[in-house]
């Protein structure tokens, strides 16, 4: 763990990685699993948000169950000098869910700019990709559209060793 996390922050993140309990006083229930009070949990979460360690807190949905079956990862091989500018243009489109600059894996995978588009139908997503290419002038750059075929696993990230979290799964 990075050194800037306190012991308390670390145990709090660990306690919530499986989600908040859906009970009237969830922060009290979380506090009980790590031996602290409700107010400390609330203050601790507020601080983690302020520090940018928690970037969003709320309901985390599964797009597939909501009918968004056409889930595409679109990758481009763009010059490194332009990746930030192009990434910022791509992320501005409302149908773009996530947009990242990632390390290339040469020679198998030269792509360095990634975005995720979730739509109801394949044709709709492909039209959106065409729009991105046209509006951001991406024609010169090789790209691929990788639709997902099957989801084997989807849950939140568990940063802490599983052995430590097993006892916290059911507060």
């Amino acid at each position, binding site marked *: 763990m990075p050194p800037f996390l306190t012991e308390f922050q670390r145990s709090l993140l660990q306690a919530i990685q499986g989600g908040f309990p859906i009970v009237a006083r969830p922060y009290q229930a979380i506090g009980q699993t790590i031996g602290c009070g409700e107010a400390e949990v609330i203050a601790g979460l507020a601080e983690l948000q302020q520090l940018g360690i928690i970037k969003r*807190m709320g*309901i985390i949905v599964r797009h597939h169950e909501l009918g968004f079956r056409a889930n595409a990862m679109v990758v481009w091989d763009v010059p490194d000098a332009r990746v930030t500018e192009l990434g910022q243009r791509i992320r501005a489109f409302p149908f773009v869910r996530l947009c990242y600059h990632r390390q290339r894996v040469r020679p198998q995978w030269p792509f360095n700019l990634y975005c995720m588009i979730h739509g109801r139908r394949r044709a709709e997503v492909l039209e959106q990709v065409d729009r991105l290419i046209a509006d951001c002038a991406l024609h010169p750059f090789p790209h*691929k559209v990788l639709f997902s075929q099957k989801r084997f696993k989807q849950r939140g990230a568990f940063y802490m060793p599983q052995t430590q979290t097993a006892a916290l799964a059911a507060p």
Partner: protein
Amino acid sequence: MEATLTSLDRQLLDAFQRDFPLSPRPYAEMAQRLGVSEEVVLARLRMLQEQGVISRIGAVVAPGRAGASTLAAIAVPPARLEPVADIVSAFPEVNHNYAREDVLNLWFVVTAASREALVDTLGRIGHATGLTVHAMPMLDNFHVDLGFSLADHQGSSDAPLSHRISA
């Protein structure tokens, strides 16, 4: 199966994918804002979680801020895709694992407490599957995570969600 959402479900999902109330009774606060009772909100959220519409209610931790993570991919011989995917999913460090249409056909996200633990995990996945694991770590994030917008996908309107809650 595709879940059927009630109008209340839609309002909950549109309004509370972020800015979840940090007050002792957050579900009561949500209920008050939507004009229903706390019991109704708790019951609907439990139902949505049971149906799989909600993965969880909780925090999304910024990548790289509380440990190390990376996207990774394997080119799995098609006949072995399912068993190899099961091996990969069995690692607690793997949170997303998808088959995608490419020679690199298995894509997953690996998280660990540190960079060393991440490298170690990638090595163990390679060993367990007998296949080469390619890691594509994030160098920059251009995205502001606002959650998943139901309204953006519903039709022509690009109006902010808050304007569409009554729809």
